[in-house]
């Protein structure tokens, strides 16, 4: 089972990213569950979502304590949250950033999701949309196939700018 923890702030689309990721995994013929951790958070507060992907039906409901991959949609949450907490040995980090970031002991990848979203004018209520470009980045990491990333986005969004943003993230990210 592959376990992913997504860190973001309330309203940034972490939950939708989890849903897209699970849907894409389903399109890949795998089993997947996605669950936000519902606490007392409100818009702007640091939040986490969990995604599990496996070849067999998933029976686990508890939170992910030892993820294989940590996704950071908003680097500012690192000021208040230890995003590496419990990350498995050999685990990876993906961060939304225009520049490379170091995470001692872990392989780190980055893409400028915010820049990509702004370039496509994917902005809602003043906030750049990160949940569709991140799916392209995670396809580049091999978590899901590029075709399923696209079909999952199209299943949820009619606006093709979302697909273009995901493709841009896939292209621009260096693995």
């Amino acid at each position, binding site marked *: 089972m592959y376990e992913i923890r997504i860190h973001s702030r309330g309203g940034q689309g972490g939950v939708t990213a*989890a849903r897209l990721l699970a849907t894409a995994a389903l399109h890949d013929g795998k089993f997947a*569950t996605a*669950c936000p951790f*519902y606490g007392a958070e409100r818009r702007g507060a640091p939040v986490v979502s969990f995604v599990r992907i496996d070849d067999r039906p998933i*029976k686990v*409901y*508890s939170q992910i304590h030892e993820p294989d991959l940590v996704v950071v949609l908003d680097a500012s949450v690192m000021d208040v949250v230890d995003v590496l907490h419990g990350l498995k040995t050999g685990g990876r980090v993906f961060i939304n950033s225009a520049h490379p970031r170091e995470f001692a002991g872990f392989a780190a990848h980055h893409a400028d999701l915010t820049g990509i979203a702004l370039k496509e004018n994917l902005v809602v209520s003043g906030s750049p949309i990160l949940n569709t470009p991140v799916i392209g980045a995670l396809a580049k990491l091999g978590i899901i196939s590029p075709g399923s990333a696209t079909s999952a986005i199209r299943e949820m969004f009619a606006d093709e700018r979302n697909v273009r943003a995901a493709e841009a993230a896939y292209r621009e990210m260096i693995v």
Partner: protein
Amino acid sequence: MRKIATGNKAVAEAVKQARPDVVAAYPITPQSEIVETIAEYIATGKLESQFIPVESEHSSMAACIGASIAGARTFTATSSHGLAYMHEMTNWAAGARLPVVMVNVNRALAPGWNIWAEHSDAIQERDTGWLQVFVSTVQEAYDTTLMAFRIAEHTDVLLPVMVNLDGFTLSHIMQPLDTVEPGDFIPPVHTPHPVDPAHPGGYGTITGPADQFRFRYEMERSMQQAKAVIGETEQEFARRFGRAYGAAEEYRAGDADVVVVALGTLGKEAEVAVDILRNEGIKAGSVRPRWFRPFPDLDLAGKEVVVIDRDYSFGFGGVLAHAIRSKNLTKVYSVIAGLGGQEVTYDDIAEFVRHRRIGEEFWFGVNDRV
């Protein structure tokens, strides 16, 4: 068609396909997504039904009762305080033999103010005459909601059914969902004595000491008959759609020396603990009662039993543990865990089994030893 859906959305989809004539509901976390989605189906013409917005849950059940007396198929959903507020009317729906279907998203009762999973809300309705079923996956929530209408409206049952799913843990998790085309799986509703202005009659008139017990006895007779109806409904569902669950779901329990008994998502996650324990050489299994009323006949003979209760009866103990003890005349290790959404992992469940002390009670997170 397979898609990713939350437990709440799966329920709403099943209700849409069951085509209730009347839906009366009041929103409450974590159930609101169910009635919001159904209201949207009705507003956009995807479901032809009458949505009655009400000012309270007491009224939503009262509206379902009125509509059901008139012969309508009815649905409502609630949680926690909403269910508690309904309590007078849940008794009435069952006593009047009305096949109302309700989904209750299990949530703790305040104080402290807590919106997370606990079974106490449903357990407090245990003795009202409602059939109660606890589900453990998004797929099972969908399938069971469809089956609930057929079971409730069956002439051998004619009692309301409450489908329970764990707040947030199941109501908000996204899992794969295969939807079906129900076709005539749920036949049209025919209640035996619908209101008919051409033939006026009395409903709920005073019933004296010479008769009241007869109505109670008939409720219990129907509750027992419901066991067969549940079985037939499951068989028919399996024949048409290829899925079945049973009155209780067993996992590696046949040759097990020790079994975990738990309701809902804890009962499903227990299966992961069972695999871990088996790898350690402990012959573990799990039994997840789906139906709580009517309570299923479980074969636990010769096994040690660890019961996890996500509820509590103060001054007595875990309610599921009590049911297992009295129905199976066996001692159990009674674990109280998961109250108010307390995190319980499969590792925790494995620990309960490893350190079981049959005959004792253990409060997870409170007692200083496992």
